[in-house]
């Protein structure tokens, strides 16, 4: 057993164990921290596969962005020290059964299927190659999806501002009267 194999299994164990803890712990802040470890474990697997750019993006966007956002929303919406309500036994049983059946089905299909890799020459996923293809406008170029995602991000930005806008007091009164008339 080489060192690389040991590192792979270590990363896999960190990822899966902290994922299980993230969905089962009753302390919401700890759930966010376990999610953080899961995401770091996945970034480690990307490093292990030598996809350094994806690993860096994973750390910057997920660990640095989304988890921090989630932690902030926990601070804003949760009372300190509150435990999450325990799900009922029936729901727990049903969910565990559904998840296990799905896992068993997919794994059964997987072990019966044999994949055939291509014989073509491998491309190194270096940043230069990624950049050239990402902004390429020829066949295999990804310029159009890139522009589409930039529009999506703009739409999400505007949407967030609109949702977070505080309505003026007079508008609130009008709205209340409106609902009262409606009722």
């Amino acid at each position, binding site marked *: 057993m080489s060192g690389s194999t040991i590192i792979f299994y270590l990363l896999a164990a960190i990822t899966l164990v902290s994922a299980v803890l993230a969905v089962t712990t009753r302390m919401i802040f700890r759930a966010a921290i376990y*999610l953080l470890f899961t995401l770091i474990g996945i970034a480690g697997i990307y490093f292990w596969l030598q996809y350094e750019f994806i690993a860096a993006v994973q750390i910057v966007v997920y660990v640095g962005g*989304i988890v921090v956002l989630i932690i902030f929303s926990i601070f804003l919406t949760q009372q300190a020290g509150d435990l999450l*309500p325990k799900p009922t036994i029936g729901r727990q049983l049903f969910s565990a059964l559904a998840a296990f059946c799905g896992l068993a089905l997919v794994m059964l299909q997987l072990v019966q299927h044999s994949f055939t890799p291509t014989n073509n020459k491998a491309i190194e996923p270096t940043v230069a190659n990624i950049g050239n293809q990402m902004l390429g406008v020829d066949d295999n170029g990804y310029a159009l999806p890139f522009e589409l995602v930039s529009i999506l991000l703009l739409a999400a930005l505007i949407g967030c501002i609109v949702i977070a806008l505080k309505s003026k007091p007079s508008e609130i009164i009008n709205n209340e009267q409106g609902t009262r008339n409606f009722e």
Partner: protein
Amino acid sequence: MILEIMIEPGLYHLLFISTALFFIGVYGFFTRRNLVTMLMSVELILNSVNLNFIAFNKYLWYDKMDGLFFTIFIIAIAAAEAAVAIAIIINLYRSHKSIDVENAEEMKY
């Protein structure tokens, strides 16, 4: 000899991790009733999909980079989705003083 081949990490090991991660996310999505923790489960599911794309790109279609680009776009879309979802959750908290899905039932009508 066979044991050594089974222990050596390859495509199937990565696919197992990704499948397990997906169904852990599904379990969390079913059992949790708090919107923030449900969002965390969705993030787990999205990450398992990313890992799947990268594994296939690395071991089967290493002559292309399509899986890698799908992963990049999924990460960008997940970031936008999380931002909008958290804006909605905080707005819901302001009006209902709770972010339980059971308490947000009246949003159906």
